[in-house]
């Protein structure tokens, strides 16, 4: 017998007037996992999360939490808690009262409240700050207090609505790791929504990519990265060079595409494509090899002039302009020291194999 998932959604729809914000969304989340919903702003993430929390009801479809339908159950009776975008810590209460708020509503004794608040503060690494007021906390501390306020209630699901959005970059990087660690120590199922693909990739066991109210693909971060199923996923998850062209030949494992820039490339494809189909080809900057002099052979090569070197430590990139066309390619620049001597204006050879790029039928 399979274990009941913590959350199961079947065919959820939600419209605001004529506008369909959430469109036939189905998924399930196994207990104890970190699940992210990733999509651009306005794609319906918050609308979906609010239905899970009970702030709105789906027009159709079913939500099951731990196997039980939650239809008609208001937010204060659902076994889920939500961390709001701006955290919504109560400014007129101190940290201890904020965290104990839910326990108080459950009529837990004052002594027990105190013990559990101290315990949860210990676990989030902020022991003894019960008496501090909210505006004495730093951004990262507020974040952790907001999460502790929910986790102390031991919910079946913790919903998080872009909680790192308001933090600066450095802190965000740090909180990503902390959130993942918190999730693992508490073992609570997290449903995390974000428009930042790196947040979703780093923290999640499973990611759902959402666009225009629909789930485009659900899978592990690796699957989304290496086997995107739609052009949207290929373009949204990670960086990609995008080339348009036409299929001129199909073979068993790969197809040949003649691009608008006048090249012929071998590429893998997402589905079986006929010749003459218009396609879009996606090629990751980090999959392209820079070849200065070796005569190693690649299935695809391209000659280009270095337009710009964007040095950013481990994320450095080259902008390379094709010598035969105006196409510009972004190429990752490995910081092994080997390419330190590259200069702007230099002509280099780029190479990659067919399985490193993927073609989709152009929509």
């Amino acid at each position: 017998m399979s274990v009941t998932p913590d959350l199961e959604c079947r065919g959820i729809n939600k419209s605001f007037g004529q506008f369909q914000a959430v469109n036939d969304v189905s998924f399930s989340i196994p207990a104890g996992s970190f699940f992210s919903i990733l999509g651009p702003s306005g794609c319906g993430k918050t609308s979906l999360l609010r239905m899970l929390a009970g702030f709105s009801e789906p027009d159709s479809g079913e939500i099951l939490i731990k196997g039980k339908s939650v239809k008609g159950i208001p937010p204060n009776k659902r076994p889920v808690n939500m961390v709001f975008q701006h955290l919504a810590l109560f400014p007129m209460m101190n940290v201890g009262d904020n965290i104990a708020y839910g326990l108080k509503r459950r009529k837990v004794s004052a002594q027990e409240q105190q013990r559990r608040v101290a315990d949860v503060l210990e676990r989030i690494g902020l022991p003894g700050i019960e008496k501090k007021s909210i505006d004495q906390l730093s951004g990262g501390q507020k974040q952790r207090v907001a999460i502790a306020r929910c986790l102390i209630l031991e919910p079946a699901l913790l919903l998080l609505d872009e909680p790192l959005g308001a933090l600066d970059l450095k802190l965000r990087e740090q909180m990503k790791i902390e959130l993942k660690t918190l999730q693992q120590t508490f073992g609570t199922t997290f449903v995390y929504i974000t428009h930042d693909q790196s947040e979703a990739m780093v923290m999640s066991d499973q990611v759902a990519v959402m666009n225009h109210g629909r789930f485009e693909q659900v899978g592990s971060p690796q699957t989304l990265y290496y086997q995107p199923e739609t052009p949207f996923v290929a373009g949204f998850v990670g960086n990609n060079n995008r080339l348009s062209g036409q299929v001129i030949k199909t073979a068993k494992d790969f197809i040949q595409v003649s691009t608008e820039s006048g090249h012929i490339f071998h590429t893998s494809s997402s589905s079986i494509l006929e010749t003459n189909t218009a396609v879009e080809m996606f090629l990751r900057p980090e999959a392209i090899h820079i070849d200065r002099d070796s005569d190693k052979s690649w299935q695809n090569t391209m000659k280009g002039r270095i337009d710009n070197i964007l040095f950013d430590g481990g994320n450095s990139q080259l902008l390379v302009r094709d010598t035969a066309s105006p196409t510009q390619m972004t190429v990752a620049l490995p910081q092994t020291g080997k390419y330190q001597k590259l200069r702007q204006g230099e002509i280099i050879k780029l190479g990659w194999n067919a399985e490193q790029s993927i073609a989709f039928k152009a929509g």
Partner: protein
Amino acid sequence: MLKLTGKNLSFYLLLMPLLLTLGLLIVLPQLDMLGVSLRERISYGEYKFSFLHYTEFFTEPLYWNTFLRTAVMSIMATLLTLLIAFPIAWYIAKVAQGKNKKLLFLACLIPFWVSELVRTYGWMILLRESGIISGFLQWSGLSSGPVELLYNDITVMTGLIYASMLFMVVPLVSTLEGMDDSLVEAAYDLGASTFTVIRSIILPYAMPGVISGCIVVFMLTLGNYLTPTLLGGKHSLWFTEQIFTQFITRFNWEQGAAFGVLLLTLSSLLVWTGLKLSGQSFKQAVAS
């Protein structure tokens, strides 16, 4: 030592007009009032220091009964205004959008277009025995004879609340508008019932607005003259009426002044008690 140099000096110079107005128009006359209240007229143009007018107040039951009645009615009017204004303010701040919001705000303001005197006479046209409501009740057969709706406490209370509404709604709207809606949702999400959300989140958040609204409404009601006199008639027993009688009818300025000082003391005392009870400081209430 206070050094009047540069920036400091210009600050005090800028403050001067305000200090002068306060001093000349408020503090000085009140001090004089206190002086007048503490003297007794012996013969024409001859006075001596005495507490007579204060002892008079405490020995004549009519005076302190009126005084107590005014205080109790004012507190009631303040609380009722708060009770009615809170949902209205909530609606304006949180539910109404865009144009509706402005219209509703304007609707609260419009009664002040008409002077208080004219507005109160308007009420009298509606409520008196030969008035519109009485006429309608007779016409529709709900009443067989003319109905007098004026000259009772309920009418006075209604008039006072009506005149105070705006001064409660404005501070409430401005504090409630500053509240992030997700605070309410978060409380609800953490298991609170609607009642608990109001008690533990909305009210504490709105407290500074509640306090400043209550102070203004209470002061205005306590010192109101027209509404209780016109709507309550001869028996309205409002303390400002006593003051008016002493000053104008009886020409007893000393007694009137004593009453004035007592009224000021009473209102200060009640406001202070209110602040203490609600655990707010005057500074917080003023800042909202």
